[in-house]
């Protein structure tokens, strides 16, 4: 990545928009030219990671396309909280069609722009993890396979939040949701299920795949920017904590996202044509308990008795990611 590395002591925070940076390196959000594509006043919960992720992603895409962007949106929290009509947060052309067809709608939009000779206008599609990994998977895979000129962004909050926190194929093992209840001998979601969508996207051999979190917003912006510099099918998978569904405090969203990365549970990387080309290294490797404990969806792992065995299984998942992606400085460990 071509961004300037900044040290914690320079900023006092991991947030972006910092005046110590060269203006060209600053966050899109730090400039008065930011488009506020998703304007304030929407109805997301306080501390919603999805609202934050979408704001950064779409403003960055706007900046990268000279404000020539049109968007499709799957049914889900982002769609519902952004368009309480007659109010709409969207300052860009935006369409919501259905829950499971967003990638295909975007394909149609891109085709229309191509045939109309409007190569300057670009297309972004967005959905939650349910709309992406489950019900919209067929259309998404089709869009990837045809290498249609669409950037698809998945806002992964690891469950169907809009309908009240049900399990999706992105829900992690042991997590409590409304359909993976924290009762019985093995409370929460089961192990050995679920989809690794970034890996599946890479398997399509598309030009660009990246993961990101709302803890590293400058990294997210840079990835969106890069994605918009490329034509063809592109996929960005953003981990967006959901205070309501995860049972976390509203002010903890960014810290929780950072912990997902720092424990190795959510590897942050990018890949071109199916090959990993960069990973975000873990700064201070932390045990998974640090990530799990603040989240009520994992409360059954700690009370009434610590479920050491299950926590160990989750730690193994993190260790596997760290090995696989070389997430810790100095190589695999």
């Amino acid at each position, binding site marked *: 990545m071509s961004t300037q590395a900044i040290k914690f002591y320079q900023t006092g925070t991991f947030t972006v928009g910092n005046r110590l940076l060269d203006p060209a390196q600053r966050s899109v959000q730090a400039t008065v030219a930011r488009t506020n594509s998703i304007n304030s006043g929407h109805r997301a919960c306080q501390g919603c990671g999805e609202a934050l992720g979408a704001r950064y992603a779409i403003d960055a895409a706007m900046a990268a396309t000279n404000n020539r962007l049109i968007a499709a949106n799957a049914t889900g929290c982002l769609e519902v909280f952004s368009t309480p009509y007659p109010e709409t947060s969207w300052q860009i052309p935006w*369409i919501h069609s259905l829950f499971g*067809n967003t990638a295909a709608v975007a394909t149609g*939009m891109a085709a229309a722009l191509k045939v109309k000779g409007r190569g300057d206008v670009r297309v972004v599609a967005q959905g939650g993890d349910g709309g992406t990994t489950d019900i919209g998977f067929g259309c998404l895979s089709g869009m990837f396979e045809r290498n249609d000129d669409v950037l698809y962004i998945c806002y992964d909050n690891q469950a169907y939040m809009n309908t009240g926190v049900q399990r999706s194929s992105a829900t992690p093992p042991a997590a409590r949701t409304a359909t993976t209840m924290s009762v019985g001998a093995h409370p929460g979601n089961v192990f050995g299920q679920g989809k690794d969508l970034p890996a599946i996207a890479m398997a399509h051999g598309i030009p660009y795949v990246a993961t990101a979190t709302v803890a590293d917003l400058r990294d997210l912006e840079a990835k969106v920017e890069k994605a918009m510099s490329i034509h063809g099918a592109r996929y960005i998978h953003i981990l967006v904590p959901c205070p309501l569904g995860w049972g976390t405090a509203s002010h903890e969203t960014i810290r929780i996202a950072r912990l997902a990365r720092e424990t190795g549970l959510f590897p942050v990387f990018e890949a071109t044509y199916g090959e990993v080309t960069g990973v975000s290294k873990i700064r201070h490797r932390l045990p998974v308990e640090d990530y799990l404990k603040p989240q009520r969806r994992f409360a059954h792992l700690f009370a009434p008795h610590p479920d050491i065995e299950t926590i160990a299984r989750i730690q193994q998942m993190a260790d596997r990611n760290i090995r696989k992606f070389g997430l810790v400085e100095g190589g695999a460990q």
Partner: protein
Amino acid sequence: MLKQTEGSRAVAEAVALCRPEVICAYPISPQTHIVEGLGEMVKSGALSRCEFINVESEFAAMSVAIGASAAGARAYTATASQGLLFMAEAVYNASGLGLPIVMTVANRAIGAPINIWNDHSDSMSQRDCGWIQLFAETNQEALDLHIQAFRLGEELSLPVMVCMDGFILTHAYERVDMPTQQQVDAYLPPYEPRQVLDPDAPVSIGAMVGPEAFMEVRYLAHAKQMQALELIPQHAAEFRSIFGRDSGGLVRPYRCEDAETIVVALGSVLGTVKDTVDELRDSGERVGVLGITSFRPFPLAAVREALEGAQRVVVLEKSLAVGIGGIVSTNVRMALSGLHLHGYTVVAGLGGRAITRASLHRMLRDAIADRLEPLTFLDLDWKLVNNVLAREKQQRRSGPIAEGMLRDVGVVASRVS
């Protein structure tokens, strides 16, 4: 220009003359030849400024059309049967959003049991989805209706389904008069969308609408179809002036003036019905035919006007509303409310069962004598049905119905004739 060609090919050429900009294709018989024809034209360059997209499902086909239409392109797709059901959610979405997509439905039965042959179950299943539905009687009309469909849909901002009988029309080689590009251009202006995703004038499309306005939005969908009732005859008249032939319109009465008995039907079966009616007329029976071209909007007034002088109405339909009987007939009854006519519903031709003149003759003789059952299944093999019913009475685990029935029939291949 006159040419001898396959129905599907004729439709493909007519669609190409309409200058579509995005075509999405997914294979399903009996529609496939249409999109194959168009794909070839795009690939060869004969149809330029058009994107041909091979999608992964019918749900995607309609969704791609939705995105393309919302971004300002003239969008077209075609499907049938299971494909129409597979895209159903997007079919409703396209009309709800007011996107003037044109789609051919090459009418085919719906399974189970899976069956590739013609009837109207597919289109009828979507009759209330908010699309305009036009039914073609001949291949000439099928190609003409596509040209009218783009014009009508774009004027109203509503999607239009052109329904043509699978195989009977799609695969039949017939003589058609193929219009010239100049004629089509004179009839069909470029697509000027009412709403478009354009960075120069951003809009949000597809917001949630609550109880405060949902009824009104739905009412407007109905009001637009009522506008279509006015426009369809006007467009047919204009079509005649440019292309020199009658095509489209709401209904097509045939020898109805003094008719005591009128058969109502849709699609290609009208040809066979007219031949039968001619024969009955020759033997002195006062029989007529009413073809319905526009099923949605349903032309209540025109149907009533055509039928009110008759004594009995026989609705011959290639669809079955399981648990009540007819679909078309329910609509026709609505047009006849308050009138005291003998009404008969004849379900015929399901899954490709041939509707022969001989059968129609027998059925109409019974109707004229008022001997016909109010709900008749034309040429139903009662022996086969009763076998299954008897078996089910005898044993609990009687097995799968269709397979048991086919065993009873024996190896005679499908009974299409």
